[in-house]
């Protein structure tokens, strides 16, 4: 609660940003954050350079989004555009996973893994490297512009720009063969979209990571708003245990008056280390990304003054009520496993297994038939009836395959294709389909005069040891109506 004298009397159109200068901190959560930063940045920068042998007909980059040829490669998995539901499934899993994480451990995504958090953290370390820790940063900020300040700002922003550039540079590596693209990029031969993408991402990283920082979380990001609705009394959040800490008082006061003051000595350490500049003692807030750095700092202070750790700690609101009433803390598993997390885990795993099942049973050969409807049929001079089709043969394997196309049903029917003479018409045809390619065929099917409209089947079979196949039903139209199924 703010008292009226703290109110900004200048109710203009804007609120001046209070720049945050977080203090360096060490502790188990900070070390966990280091680990995750190394992991996430490592995955981001290194992944495009991992090679994966797919034979001579496919690219050898482990993770590649090949927009030009419309292929998505992920290690041993290759996805064609019509199989994009796998990607959709992964995105749904990511969404449900986010729900799961939120219901189990609150805003862990925000605190540890969100790119905005990771890059902001990285940039804050750059601040410390160039300007020194919090106090030095504050002094430099207040200092007038002079040679030293100009030098330090220029250096810092140059490092920002360098990081930002590599962030954008790494992004485009996912969309083309990385070594080739690097060569083309520096020799000026890469596609304009590559330079534009690097430019935009450099700019956004520079601005969002270097300057906007916690403003992105507070003003721009929708996720904190959604999370507000998802957190409940069973969610782990960073909590200041006010029943233990209040009223605040110095160590000296406590020595003079034992029992009169709480454990919080009002050292402001938790506020000083907070990357968003929030005072956790005011209770949960959109500004708290639950990075737990304040826990590290508070634990350190509590150790120094010989009080038990955990004045600020991960806790659920339910546990807080219990603890406030004097009960011992419940085991952490109680907070992690409750109905909601189990349901989310179930949904998440079900989608995952469904995707794995679909992946394991999907076919790498496909035939797709599209019938010409205008006209539905053509009468030949001999009286034979011709129907035309576009038949697409899909060879999704990384090797060329001979495939046999044949027709099943349609008595007396024969077909030929656009690139062969009609005299060679027959009921089957062998086509060589290139590796990882779609072969479209113009197919003309003729049936004797008097053939009724009916259904028949195009059958496709790979002429190799596996002998995989597929079939597709097609309609044959005729001036002679069929009895049952005609329109």
């Amino acid at each position, binding site marked *: *609660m*703010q*008292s*009226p004298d*703290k*109110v*900004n009397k200048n*109710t*203009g*159109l*804007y*609120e*001046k*940003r209070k720049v945050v200068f977080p203090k360096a901190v060490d502790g188990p959560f900070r070390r966990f954050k280091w680990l995750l930063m190394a992991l996430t940045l490592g995955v981001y920068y290194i992944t495009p350079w991992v090679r994966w042998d797919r034979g001579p007909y496919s690219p050898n980059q482990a993770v590649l989004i090949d927009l030009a040829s419309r292929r998505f490669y992920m290690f041993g998995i290759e996805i064609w555009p019509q199989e994009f539901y796998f990607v959709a499934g992964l995105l749904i899993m990511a969404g449900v996973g986010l729900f799961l994480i939120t219901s189990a451990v609150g805003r862990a995504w925000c605190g540890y893994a969100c790119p905005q958090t990771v890059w902001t953290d990285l940039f804050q370390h750059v601040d410390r490297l160039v300007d020194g820790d919090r106090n030095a940063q504050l002094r430099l900020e207040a200092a007038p512009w002079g040679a030293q300040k100009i030098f330090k700002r220029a250096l810092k922003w140059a490092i920002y720009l360098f990081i930002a550039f590599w962030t954008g540079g790494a992004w485009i590596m996912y969309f083309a063969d990385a070594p080739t693209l690097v060569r083309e990029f520096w020799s000026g031969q890469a596609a304009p979209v590559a330079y534009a993408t690097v430019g935009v991402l450099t700019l956004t990283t520079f601005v969002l990571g270097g300057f*906007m920082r916690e*403003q992105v979380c507070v*003003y721009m990001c929708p996720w904190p708003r959604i999370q507000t609705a998802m957190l409940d009394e069973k969610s782990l959040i960073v909590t200041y245990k006010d029943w233990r800490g209040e009223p605040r008082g110095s160590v000296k006061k406590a020595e003079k008056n034992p029992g009169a003051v709480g454990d919080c000595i009002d050292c402001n350490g938790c506020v000083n280390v907070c990357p968003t500049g929030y005072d956790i003692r005011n209770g949960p807030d959109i500004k708290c990304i639950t990075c737990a750095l304040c826990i590290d700092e508070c634990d350190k202070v509590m150790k120094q003054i010989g009080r038990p750790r955990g004045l600020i700690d991960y806790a659920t609101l339910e546990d807080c009520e219990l603890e406030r009433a004097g009960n011992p803390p419940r085991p952490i598993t109680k907070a992690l496993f409750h109905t909601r997390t189990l349901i989310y885990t179930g949904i998440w795993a079900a989608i995952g297994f469904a995707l794995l099942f679909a992946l394991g049973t999907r076919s790498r050969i496909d035939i797709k038939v599209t019938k*010409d*409807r*205008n*006209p539905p049929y*053509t*009468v*030949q*001079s*001999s*009286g*034979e009836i*011709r129907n*035309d089709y576009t038949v697409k043969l899909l060879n999704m394997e990384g090797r060329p395959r001979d495939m046999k196309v044949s027709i099943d049903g349609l008595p*007396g029917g*024969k077909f030929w294709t*656009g690139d062969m*003479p*009609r*005299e060679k*018409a027959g009921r089957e045809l062998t086509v060589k389909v290139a590796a990882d390619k779609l072969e479209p065929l*113009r197919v*003309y099917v003729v049936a*004797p*005069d*008097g053939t009724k409209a009916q259904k028949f089947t195009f059958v496709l079979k790979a002429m190799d040891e596996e002998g995989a196949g597929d079939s597709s039903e097609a309609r044959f139209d005729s001036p002679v109506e069929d009895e049952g199924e005609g329109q």
Partner: protein
Amino acid sequence: MANKKIDEATGIETVGHEWDGIEELNNPLPRWWVWTTYLTIIFAIGYMIVYPAIPMLHSATAGVWNWSSRGQLADEMAEGAAKRKAATDAIAAMSVEDLVKDEKLMPLAIAGGAAAFRQNCVQCHGSGAAGGIGFPNLKDDDWLWGGNIKEIETTLQHGIRSPDDAATRTSLMPSFGKDGILTEAQVGDAASYVLSLSGSAPNDAAAQRGAAVFQANCVACHGTDAKGMRQFGAPNLTDKVWLYGGKREQVVGSITKAHAGVMPAWGKKLDPVTIKMLAAYVHSLGGGEDFTSAPAAPASGTDGNAKP
């Protein structure tokens, strides 16, 4: 803004309005947000200077870049033509006889022809090229004037009975009934005979009487075997494809009052490359003939297995 006051619970000033006891806090925006708004205003001003924006009496201001959607279309069309130039130049330099054998250029020509077809030909031949009564079906294997790519090109170039082209394909079937050359009974007999040739009607007494009528009047153009003659565009009467309908009354009508369909000479309107591409497209529709196949159509008209 009369009732500005400090809200007690939050300590923030209200905007001064009240709706049924509900008041709004005056929480200020961050400065960068305000700047963004100013930036959009500056952008809008620049946009109005550069692009057509302010409506005047007859049109809008042109803008300093002189942009127009029409101009953009012209630029894009020119760009497309420039991209196609290599292919169209190569097609222009070769004959259709060579084009049909060119595995690389033929698909391009077919695609270009398909586009030109939709623009120029669908009005009569239909968007699926299936034609209709009086307008030939271009997908079948029956050709009045020839179905190899060269003949198709000639037909396209000069048209059929096109009054403004001296080299146009032309022929005229007499109106046997209307002009009194044959009696009504003779016309009926001739129709019976013609229909019996393709098995569409029984070979009865009328048909046999009609055979005599046919031999006396029709063989000059349609041939003694009634298989037509392409130099006159005379249709093969033994097949199952009927340009003006294969029902008895339609055939009687055609003999009584002859049809003489007209196709424009497209050489006067389209450039030679487009004509070649159109020929390629029409040739590719499933009935195109090559140069070696016999000009007369199928060996036998009725058993349904004329061609293997």
